[in-house]
């Protein structure tokens, strides 16, 4: 059956394909779907993820035959050369990519038998390009930072960054809580110069204001904790150790709170 080819900005392209473990009818059906899709779109090579199947399967058209390469790996490589590449995923974009001109590939056929072969020139390049798709990548991960930035600017929605479609926000809302707590503590610090200028009856009012601010900072810190937890679940993909960041931030804020708190106790209230 002819399947739809993955097109930008479908985030599926960022999924990493699993190894094929079962060489059964389902696998043969996937391969047939890939061949049908290749014929319909006049393609010379296709990896399964490009029709939404998250398994390490590549089909390459060799003369009139369609050969499946399953669980492919590059074992030997030599002779790097730069050539202009296109991708069916990012239509209308072509970039210069460094690839090996000679590779040795190991793979399994549709029955699960192991094979190896040497590929050269365009065949080697096509295989490397398809294998990158199997590893959740397109040519944008093989170019320098400037080129990547240029492609990012060219695309209406920017480059696809991860498999969930959502990329990491520039600003985490949890930071507003943190900033609020810091401003609160900043105001308390400012009040520390007040005793030099104001009359003693004002001291009592300043003390009350400082205590109020200290309580507000604690409330903001609690708010930070819970909101940050919620946000870290929402953006699991954004950093690998969000819990560590949250606890670290809270420890720093608590330390600062203790310092300004003791300032209020010993300097303002006394």
């Amino acid at each position, binding site marked *: 059956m002819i399947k739809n080819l993955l097109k930008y900005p479908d985030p599926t392209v*960022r999924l*990493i*394909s*699993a*190894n094929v*473990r*079962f060489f059964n009818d389902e696998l043969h059906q996937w391969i047939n779907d890939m061949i049908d899709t290749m014929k319909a779109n006049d393609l010379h090579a296709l990896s399964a993820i490009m029709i939404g199947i*998250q*398994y390490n399967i590549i089909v390459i058209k060799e003369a009139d035959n369609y050969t499946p390469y399953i*669980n492919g*790996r*590059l*074992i*030997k490589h030599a002779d790097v050369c730069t050539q202009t590449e296109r991708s069916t995923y990012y239509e209308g974009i072509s970039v210069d990519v460094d690839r090996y001109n000679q590779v*040795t590939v*190991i793979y399994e056929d549709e029955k699960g038998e*192991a094979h*190896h072969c040497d590929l050269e020139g365009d065949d080697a390049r096509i295989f490397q390009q398809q294998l*990158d798709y199997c*590893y*959740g*990548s397109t040519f944008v*991960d*093989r170019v320098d930072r400037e080129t990547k930035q240029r492609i990012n600017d060219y695309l209406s929605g920017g*480059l696809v*960054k*991860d*498999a969930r479609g959502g*990329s*990491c926000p520039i600003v985490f809302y949890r930071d507003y809580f943190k900033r609020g707590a810091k401003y609160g503590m900043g105001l308390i610090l400012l009040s520390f110069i007040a005793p030099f200028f104001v009359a003693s009856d004002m001291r009592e009012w300043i003390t009350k204001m400082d205590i109020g601010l200290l309580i507000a900072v604690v409330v903001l810190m609690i708010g930070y904790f819970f909101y940050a937890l919620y946000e870290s679940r929402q953006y*699991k*993909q*954004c*950093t*690998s*150790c969000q819990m560590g960041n949250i606890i670290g931030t809270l420890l720093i804020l608590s330390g600062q709170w203790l310092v300004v708190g003791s300032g209020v106790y010993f300097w303002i209230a006394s």
Partner: protein
Amino acid sequence: MARLVVLGGGVAGHTAATFAADWLGKDHEVVVVTPNSKWNWIPSNIWVGVGEMSKEEVTFDLAPVYEKAGITYKQAKAVSINPEGSAKKAKPFVTIEYTGQGKAGHSDEIEYDYLINATGPKLNFGATPGLGEGSNLGQHTVSVCTADHAEHASHELTKIMDKMRKGQRQKILIGTGHGMCTCQGAAFEYIFNVEHEIRKAGLRDMADIQWISNESFMGDFGMGGLHMNVGGYVVSSRIFTESLFAERGVSYITGAHVNKVEKGKVHYELLDGSMGEESFDFSMLIPPFAGVGLKAYNKAGDDITDTVFAPNGFMKVDADYSPKAYEDWKASDWPRTYQNPTYKNMFAAGIAFAPPHIISKPAKSVNGTVINPTPPRTGMPSGIIGKAVAHSICDLIKKGPDAHLHEASMAEMGAACVASAGKGWLDGQAAAMTVYPVVPDYDKYPGTGRDTDYTFGEIGLAGHWIKHILHYLFIYKAKLKPFWKVIPE
């Protein structure tokens, strides 16, 4: 009064012994048998190997720590186990041979009620001709597996850097020294730390640096790969590693079984069956691991090593060891309680337990040579398993033989690892990686077998700071300083 004997004082053994001593109190005895007089924080050996840390900074004397914890310490290596006792002894015992404490060479028999085998691996240099003899490192290559090896590696590295200063171009080869090695992560850390030091010294243009590994693709790490976050983009560890190697100008060979090492040259076989050779002036090759070679005897004195240990020398535990094809692997094959199926008072923790199968996709060359990484068991799973086993034994002692055993399956456990790619407070780099679960569960997470939300890595300077802080934190914990128990494994 019950006696728990812990064989080995590495991450798993030390964690198990110290927690057990704390939980059991003075009513019971905990004995640690380890041939080393010092504890070694192995991950930091990488930095000793490039001269960024001294041997003393990554080790400390065990005797005072065990004295403080009320643990009986025997500086000895375990030779054999008699799980049924012997004709003369009714209770099970281990035979040990002292390596220190003024009794070196003397043998002793220590009776036990419960035994934890946490001997770690034998560094099997002898598996590759020329790499070494038995567990001894040979003369052609260096290693960073022990603090002494790392110190030697650092001296050798200084020598070749001196040659570079004199204008002699040097070839550096780092990776795995056999087709069935694990610990690619350590070699990965070492190659980038070496590259970082050479670059810092302004000698980068005088060195050709090459990686050689038994992984079938770059970034497999013995775990079948993972996802990395690089500059906000999620890519597989293969793309990430290949980019990192290209960025640092390091070439690589994958799918290689090093089958012979000579002076200045390695011979290897690749997964496609072809043979190759590579020359070097300096080479660090990780050896394969095997069990330490403990023997086991029954009451009559017959050798029952095959019953207690798997053929690779690791102890059999509650895993499913029946041979299975790749497609039939299940998360449930992996052990949960680490209890020996024959002798229920024996447990194994850390590297000492026999895994049911590997984690990466199995691979053989066309000549039939197995070339695939064996399962890594890094500090975090080892510590967690050691603690769970200690917990089970404490419950068996305190609540009786029907106590529920604590479980810590690697198929339900995540692991975090920070791989250094260069040391320096401002220019350091490290890749922080988390994997969940360590062993893929293909039923729960169809396809890759992993929860992609928690299988993640990032590289940067902050990672290096974390790695450096962990160095102090874990040595602090291992020294049983105040609040050591709240520091996670």
